């Protein structure tokens, strides 16, 4: 398994945001996560790729325990992530944003990574804006930059946090096509999304979270038909 989460628990005081969570992602697999607001989805990402330390349980990436492994080292190990609210380096150009990820995430020189950065920008439709300041980008472009920057680190697992939120129908379709292309390169994907139809167009497996607990998991279409999930699903779409 590429990612193994077992018995994961996280609480802030008396508030439990992750409760005995188990989750696995195989190499090249695409797994989706849905759940209402406050279900602990982003917290799960922060436990896997961020600075949060779990209260109990463990997370293994490629067989290596991530407990005590610092943020930059997790990135270099092959975990890439995008943020719900894009966090571009505004005074750097789009290309320089990617360079940071490529140079430090892969331990290569600027010259060595230029070609692959250019290719990623082309694939994500940002080539035209390569030498523009990241601060001048539109929301869609910022979301694409989040993904491009994460890809520049050459991840084996890509965590996408509500990347389709706030996009128009057409933009969403384009995004789904892009994510499918990324999948073809062998990158495993773990994707949190409220826009369920976009999610279903990509993933192999669906996990439903509620109040920090996993309440359902399995083949997406079947999971969506379950009455308890359906209820939450209605809640999301409303």
């Amino acid at each position, binding site marked *: 398994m590429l990612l193994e989460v077992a018995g994961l628990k996280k609480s802030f005081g008396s508030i439990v945001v992750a409760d005995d969570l188990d989750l696995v992602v195989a190499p090249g697999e695409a797994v989706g996560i849905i759940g209402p607001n406050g279900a602990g989805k982003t917290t799960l990402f922060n436990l896997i790729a961020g600075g949060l330390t779990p209260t109990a349980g463990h997370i293994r990436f490629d067989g290596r325990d991530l407990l005590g492994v610092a943020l930059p080292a997790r990135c270099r190990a092959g975990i890439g992530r995008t943020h719900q609210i894009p966090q571009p380096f505004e005074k750097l150009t789009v*290309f320089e944003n990617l360079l940071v990820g490529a*140079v430090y995430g892969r331990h290569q020189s600027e010259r060595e990574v*230029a070609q692959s950065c250019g290719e990623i920008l082309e694939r994500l439709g940002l080539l035209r804006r390569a030498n523009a300041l990241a601060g001048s980008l539109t929301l869609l472009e910022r979301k694409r930059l989040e993904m491009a920057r994460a890809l520049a680190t050459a991840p084996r697992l890509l965590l996408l946090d509500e990347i389709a939120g706030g996009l128009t129908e057409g933009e969403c379709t384009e995004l789904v096509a892009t994510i499918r292309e990324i999948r073809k390169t062998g990158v495993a994907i773990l994707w949190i999304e409220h826009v369920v139809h976009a999610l279903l167009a990509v993933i192999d497996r669906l996990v439903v979270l509620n109040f920090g607990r996993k309440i359902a998991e399995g083949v997406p279409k079947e999971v969506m038909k379950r009455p308890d999930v359906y209820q939450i699903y209605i809640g999301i779409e409303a």
Partner: protein
Amino acid sequence: MDDAAARPVQTFRIETAGGASRIAASIALLIVLVLALLPMFAGRTLIQDLIFLFYMLALAQCWNLLAGYAGLISVGQQAFVGLGGYLLFALTLIGGLNPLLAIPIAGVVSALFALPTALIVFRLRGAYFAIGTWVVAEVYRLVFAQIKPLGGGTGTSLTPTITSSVPGIEWVKTLLDLRTPAARDIVSYWVALALVVATLAAVYFILRSRRGLALGAIRDHEAAAAGLGVDIYRIKLAVYVATAAMTGMIGALIYLQKARISPDAAFSVLDWTAYVIFIVVIGGIGTMEGPVVGAIIFYLMQRYLADFGAYYLILLGTLGILVMLFAPKGLWGLVAERHGLTLFPTRRRLVIEADKRVQLNP
């Protein structure tokens, strides 16, 4: 299936800084040359003023790298100015070394002191870091006030033998037909010019290297930089130690020129940190040009308004507040934003080499 093969294959290349920088480099070289030859024509007052301008600019560049890029808002850089100054006095008065040799040694020793200091202050964040650095500087001041061979709390002076033992003074005396004090100022001026040019070159070199890329990212969004593999702690530590070395050397030079040192003056938060912050903030933090603009404005204000005493300080504070409120990117930021100007280009551009279409069935 042939679709993918028929798609143009693009070759990309990285290009750092454009052709405009060559013109800028020639102009910079010309300015340095004019400044180097200035003592031939200029009076002693101007030379002394420019020495002051040079070391304030060098200090401002260091603080800008620290605070503007690495996010280390230190209010304790006077620790290294004072340390450098005292090291110069100790090495020349007690150690019997030549002052010019003492300056680089002061830099190395400052870096060595910066390491354990960093281990303490790096445990603190934000405002606590700022206060922590200040407290450490006060500790340095109190420690040096206890050292009796260096004058304790009242301080000490360099002997005329030491101040005139700097190489080149005799040469300047005969060349320009000057008395020893004037010749001494000219040599100090050259050393100050060399040091400010070296500081600018060092900061520029750092910003153009891969560390500069990381520093730009840390400046804009620290957490995101860490998530992309940038080892924040290591880079911050490197910047802290490097700026301590540079600040220590500047401190040594300042007190070689002053020839008299006391703990209160050498570890003064007002002279070596507050004014420096003022320079960086009004010029524009997080750019290399900002401190240059700020240092010139500060020098002009000091030159023409210092006679007004307290009103001068009130004016200085008011200007600082106005700039922070209405031009938070500083005066350089106001100009540069509108015209996309840069004197120290560090931009990396992506260049598409050429479209090499794959030939299919000619």
